[in-house]
């Protein structure tokens, strides 16, 4: 494929079919996108969006079908060919190498960065500068990727793709891990970019789709079920195209439960992985039967807070009173024994053991208690029964409960975790980003479960970046900024605007 300095006037796929062992991921998909267009691709988890894009990038070979650029059929054997044709992709799971610096990451796939086997990082820096000038995307070239926040990593991905000369951009769920501010910035940026590029944009958030895209296509179970101009449809209509039913996120009715204070965080101090104080004199109280939403831009200590409460990270100062008892620096096992429930941020490697079956993951926290074992022997029958019941109750989509949990989609993994945590009947629940990257249907379900739990009188600390989620669910909203609680607002009266300011560290007295 010679480097077509020529533009991509149109890109079409026709009749793409892709099978994985036991799965039909893409089923005879056709679609087209023209120059300077933004196409939004939406669909439930596991609908086949990522697969289709990977085919466009030459990562997967389709079983059937073809790709046409400017009406010429092309054949991509590897992403290299796609780059040469001018297509670039920001993957759903970032394709960055944590222990390399940003320039090194970008240099990896850049031909100009290598002369006679020697890295010419200067060349990469120059190119990055160019991209940054052109699109206003700034990243520190010398930082190691592991030091960057998710938002920064995403920017690196974008810069990388642009440095490779992409004139056709694919973004696979670029906003699922971004803060509201970052999301807004990105949307503006993409809007501007579309003057020079064509973009395919995948998202579960229909509001974004509305703001950004010109056209929208909906995938369901691997088939293209809908295509049309975005303007003509409301988000609710689009949502119903995706799931076949209307989705409405539930709202906390905020009937006051007036419970006692069950989790009291006093003057917490803890360090982050990078050594600075991520929690700096943090105070917060959660009562029984209320959801306290913790709003904040990620990286302000949310993760550390959740870990400290659950005994996974060392607390260096302050105390954590749980039903009156100080649980600071107990082992995770002890904290669990006290009745703490925890939905962790990292669902794929922390919330589940990926190679274990769903059943085995259900008993992760109760393998020694009488619930699933007798004299240390596992009650396999009970475990199977309970798991099957939970599969039904939580609508976990899987062949059966002996399936490896790691092979489920993110939404279903999240349901497994939720099922485990709720079925343990915890006395308290810490939920961190519980719906990140999930489709509307799954999010609705999880919200319902959280509210049910609250109405049973359980206290919940809900960490989220999505203001809608926070506003819908919380009785009270705490705003975290640089390891401190800026303020605690009442859920009924809080306004998005005040929240946004507080999250940015601005306090109006």
């Amino acid at each position: 494929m010679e480097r077509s300095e020529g533009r991509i006037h149109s890109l079409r796929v026709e009749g793409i079919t892709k099978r994985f062992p036991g799965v039909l991921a893409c089923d005879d998909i056709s679609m087209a996108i023209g120059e300077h267009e933004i196409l939004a691709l939406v669909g439930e988890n596991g609908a086949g969006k990522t697969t289709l894009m990977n085919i466009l990038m030459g990562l997967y070979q389709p079983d059937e079908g073809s790709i046409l650029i400017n009406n010429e059929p092309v054949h991509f054997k590897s992403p290299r060919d796609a780059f040469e044709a001018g297509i670039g992709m920001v993957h759903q799971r970032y394709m960055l190498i944590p222990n390399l610096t940003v320039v090194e990451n970008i240099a990896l796939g850049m031909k100009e960065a290598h002369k006679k086997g020697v890295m010419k990082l200067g060349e990469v820096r120059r190119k990055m500068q160019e991209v940054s000038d052109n699109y206003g995307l700034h990243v520190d070239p010398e930082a190691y990727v592991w030091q960057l926040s998710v938002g920064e990593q995403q920017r690196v991905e974008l810069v990388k793709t642009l440095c490779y000369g992409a004139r056709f951009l694919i973004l696979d769920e670029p906003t699922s891990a971004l803060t509201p501010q970052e999301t807004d910035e990105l949307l503006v940026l993409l809007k501007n970019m579309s003057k020079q590029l064509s973009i395919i944009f995948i998202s579960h958030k229909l509001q974004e789709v509305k703001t950004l895209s010109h056209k929208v296509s909906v995938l369901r179970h691997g088939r293209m079920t809908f295509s049309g101009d975005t303007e003509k449809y409301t988000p609710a209509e689009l949502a119903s195209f995706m799931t076949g039913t209307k989705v409405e996120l539930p709202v906390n009715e905020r009937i006051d439960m007036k419970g006692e204070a069950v989790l009291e965080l006093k003057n917490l101090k803890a360090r982050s992985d990078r050594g600075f104080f991520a929690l700096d004199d943090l105070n917060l109280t959660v009562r029984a039967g209320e959801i306290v939403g913790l709003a904040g831009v990620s990286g302000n200590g949310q993760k550390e807070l959740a870990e400290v409460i659950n005994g996974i990270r060392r607390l260096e100062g302050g105390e954590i009173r749980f039903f009156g008892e100080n649980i600071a620096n107990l082992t995770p096992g002890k904290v669990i024994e006290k009745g703490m429930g925890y939905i962790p941020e990292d669902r794929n490697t922390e919330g589940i053991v990926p190679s274990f079956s769903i059943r085995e993951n259900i008993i992760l926290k109760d393998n020694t208690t009488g619930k699933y074992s007798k004299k240390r022997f596992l009650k396999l029958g009970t475990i199977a029964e309970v798991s099957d019941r939970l599969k039904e109750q939580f609508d976990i989509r899987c062949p059966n409960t002996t399936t490896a949990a790691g092979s489920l989609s993110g939404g279903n993994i999240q349901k497994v975790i939720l099922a485990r945590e709720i079925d343990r009947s915890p006395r308290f629940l810490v939920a961190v980003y519980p719906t990140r990257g999930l489709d509307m249907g799954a999010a609705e379900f999880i919200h319902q479960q959280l509210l049910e739990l609250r109405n049973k009188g359980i206290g919940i600390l809900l960490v989220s970046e999505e203001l809608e989620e926070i506003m819908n669910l919380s009785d009270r909203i705490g705003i975290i900024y640089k390891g401190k609680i800026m303020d605690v607002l009442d859920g009924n009266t809080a306004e998005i605007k005040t929240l946004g300011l507080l999250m940015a560290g601005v306090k109006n007295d």
Partner: protein
Amino acid sequence: MIDFLYSILVLGIPFSVSLLLASLGEMYNQRAGIFNLGCEGVMSMGAFVGFVIPYFLIRAGVESGIIYVLGIAGSLAAGALLGLFFGVVVITFKAPQGIAGIGLQMFGVGVAGTLFRHFIGGIASVPGIKPMPVPLLSKIPLVGNIFFNHSLIVYLALILVPVSAWVMNRSSWGLRVRACGTAPRAVDSVGISVDRVRYQSLAVGGALAGLAGAYLSLCQVKMFADTLISGRGFIAVALVYFGRWNPWGILWGALLFSVTQVLQLKIQTMGINVPYEFAVMLPYVLVIIVLTFSNKNFQLGPSSLGKAFDRENRL
């Protein structure tokens, strides 16, 4: 005291060379994500091929130094070939690397031994490669003998340390190797073939392990036997962990091991009245102790070490 140190270093450096070379080779494999427990087998083949070429050429009446050049070239080629062969098993067929490494070890040691016993029959020797003092530098008192009075391979091995550090950190290929060992999926996503990089690193690593073997059979003992390597391949693998995948760390590990080895021999000859077994254990114990108390915070390790890469299989 200086005398004592001198006498230890003057031997410790040449004795460290085979471990250093093999360990550097293993480092290339591991940085690309391949755990090659078969180092021993590759060394054995390298030692055999490196030995057998000059051996037969001498019998055919060739006298010039070229025979050793051919021998070395042969050992590099044999090592690289075995590395590639291992690649077929663990990269193309994606077999588990630990078990395949043990297979490779048996295969290499076995083939070298079988061919040796069939074609040469019994233990045999060659005049071997002579030390090549570096002009001028070797005349410096003490230091001259320690560093500049060895065979060519010793210098080569020592130079390979900074060279490897450079290749790893500054060259395009090194970047790819490092990336493959940590996040092969990311490498794949920018259109670089992970498999190809891994094959390349196996060839390089194998060649170095082959050279390590040839160093033993051509420079250090100048003979071959089917038990020549006697577990040094496994020590070389261990030293990669000691060196934290860093050429300088590996150099330090290989030197520590060999210098302690000389030290323990000297302790024995001094007639100190403890069972000699304790002396023999010394290098092994010391390596563990030093690693135990060294700072391990800086984690460079290839986090995808030992995992086969399969683009479609995401589990």
